[in-house]
């Protein structure tokens, strides 16, 4: 019994008194002001969808993965999102391995509620075959080091990893369009998730005097504080979730004040997360591996050179696929980094411009024209806005169109894609899903042209 007592951190009476009395003079033990966050550092791993966040000394890692499953009966058209937390014993001596403790479950629930109830992740776009196959997105959060305020750090990690996650592209095939083909990332650029907004969690700590409020409490402050509240808001000021697990009573005036503070902090945090993700994406784009296209001299006029084996494509860049959001008539395998201007991208996106697709020169050199990073950036930036709306329209697109497209694709004038600066992956479910009225026309027209 005495042996067990030896290994945990203890709070002294001196520390408790000191932390509270220091707060009365508006100073915190690490020198911060009561409303300052600690230094935030977001790092990304080599895999898509893996992020590590360091908030002061607190470290949290998050990993996103996806699996095809059957949807729930009552939501046949939606994919699912689930959050799992793992409180590793190396983070804190009080964490025990095995079943998640109360705080682990609570942390998972706060993050889950913030993402799910505010519908931050678009789950309808995760549906492949209604009532049969949908994507189940799973976010695993690992706590690596507990130095206080795990909720905020874990939330940021979850958001960062969801923003950089890419899921494989699927297409429907077979005679009745019921067979789903999942394309490996070497063959087709994987797609990002559709995220409408970023719900950021902001945690407040209250001490015995209710007017003493601190943001981002450290480990010691958490041991001393008497009440806690986590507010999840997005940069627009929408409150996504509030969690107040017992503790000291707080008047509504203080709560409103805290929500206002949280709004400001959420804006800051969103900007930081987006910056970090953007930097990561640009780096990723720059490291793209070139994909070789097996069909070299392809006539735009639809020579059905069956690129059957997409496998011929060498590892394309998984990175460049941001552009896949742009309508592609065909999949271009070679996403190179320099490309057309972003303006073009924008316009392309908007009119689903296949009009830029013109019968390409048969002596197309895959390495001369490339997609450039500006393009990628622009697409990434604008994609957030334009794609969702497009998605809505495109739902009405006919799925049956897919099979035809499949056939067409291959021949696809990759060069055209290139010249238009569009990125690859034309035909996939995504296309069917995206608003491709124009695409359809274009396809029609190009078919006619052929």
């Amino acid at each position, binding site marked *: 019994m005495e*042996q067990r007592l030896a290994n945990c951190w*203890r709070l002294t*009476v001196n520390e408790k008194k*000191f932390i509270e009395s*220091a707060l009365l003079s508006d*100073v*915190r*033990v690490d020198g911060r002001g009561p409303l300052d966050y600690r230094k935030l550092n977001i790092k990304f791993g080599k895999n898509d969808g893996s992020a590590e966040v360091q908030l002061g000394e607190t470290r949290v890692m998050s990993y996103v993965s996806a699996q095809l499953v059957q949807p729930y009966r009552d939501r046949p058209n939606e994919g699912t999102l689930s959050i799992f937390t793992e409180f590793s014993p190396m983070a804190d001596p009080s964490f025990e391995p095995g079943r998640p403790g109360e705080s682990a479950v609570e942390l998972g629930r706060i993050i889950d509620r913030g993402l799910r109830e505010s519908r931050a992740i678009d789950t309808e776009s995760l549906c492949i075959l209604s009532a049969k196959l949908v994507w189940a997105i799973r976010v695993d959060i690992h706590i690596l080091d507990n130095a206080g305020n795990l909720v905020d750090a874990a939330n940021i990690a979850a958001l960062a990893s969801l923003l950089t996650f890419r899921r494989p592209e699927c297409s429907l095939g077979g005679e009745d369009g019921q067979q789903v083909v999942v394309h490996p990332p070497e063959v087709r650029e994987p797609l990002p998730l559709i995220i409408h907004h970023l719900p950021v969690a902001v945690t407040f700590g209250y001490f015995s005097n209710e007017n003493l409020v601190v943001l981002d409490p450290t480990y010691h402050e958490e041991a001393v504080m008497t009440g806690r509240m986590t507010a999840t808001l997005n940069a627009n000021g929408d409150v996504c979730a509030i969690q107040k697990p017992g503790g000291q009573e707080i008047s509504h005036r203080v709560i409103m004040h805290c929500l206002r503070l949280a709004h400001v902090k959420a804006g800051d945090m969103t900007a930081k997360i987006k910056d970090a993700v953007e930097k990561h994406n640009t780096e990723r784009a720059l490291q793209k591996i070139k994909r070789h296209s097996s069909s070299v001299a392809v006539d735009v006029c639809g020579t059905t050179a069956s690129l059957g084996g997409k496998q011929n494509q060498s590892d394309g860049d998984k990175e460049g696929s941001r552009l896949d959001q742009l309508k592609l008539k065909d999949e271009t395998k070679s996403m190179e980094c320099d490309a057309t201007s972003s303006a073009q991208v924008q316009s392309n996106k908007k009119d689903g411009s296949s009009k830029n697709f013109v019968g390409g020169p048969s002596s197309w050199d895959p390495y001369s024209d490339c997609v450039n990073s500006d393009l990628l950036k622009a697409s990434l930036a604008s994609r957030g806005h334009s794609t969702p709306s497009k998605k809505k329209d495109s739902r009405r697109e006919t799925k049956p169109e897919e099979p035809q497209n499949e056939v067409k694709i291959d021949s696809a004038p990759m060069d055209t894609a290139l010249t238009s600066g569009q990125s690859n992956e034309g035909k996939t479910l995504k296309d069917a899903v995206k608003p491709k009225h124009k695409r359809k026309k274009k396809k029609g027209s190009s078919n006619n042209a052929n």
Partner: protein
Amino acid sequence: MESKLSGSATNLVDQLVYPGDVVLDLSSMTNQTIKLGGGLRQDSDVISVMKAGRLRFSKPNKYWVESSQKRYVPHAEDSVLGIVVDSRSDNFLVDIKGPAIAFLPVLAFEGGTRRNIPKFEVGALLYVRVVKANPGMNPELSCTDASGKAGEFGALKEGYMFECSTGLSRMLLSSPTCPVLDTLGKKLSFEIAVGLNGRVWVNASSPSTTIIVANALINSEPLSGVQQKIMAEKLLQRVQ
């Protein structure tokens, strides 16, 4: 390895040594008594290193290896900061960051009798001396020095305590005074109690002074003497 062999090991004192290094060749020294401290071991004719760290020597014949870690291994005659965990009829249970909880007999105070047993609440911070520390047993503490006087031992009131590595504690206790304490002491008035177990208590008249001192000490660990001075001066300038 051969080059490290030396009769007197003077070239290795105060150097970084690693497990397996041979620091003394006994065959060349006769009729000498050498005392070995932690981290060294005798292997028939040679003394070899067991723990990575710096080799230290103190006259006339003591050698040991010093390294800095977060864990504390209790040794006799160390002054440490302990936190009261529980009180029993005959001793207090005090946590000193070691592998086992230490016992502080209720009578181990100056003028301590059964009538005037001090009352410590759970979480009280004490400055105590380790009397006995045998491996596998709970260490024994005392609030008096070897002669029975209280000295500075006892409960520490107010102030703020932070934890650090054993290396930082030793540096803060070294003489001459380490540069960071010197520089801070010139401008601020504060008192500190340093425990060899990696706990430091700071007290000053205002909370902000305490916080400045505590942060300066924590940040001074990886710095050299000159860097410490510069860091402390910059901090003081920023504050005043």
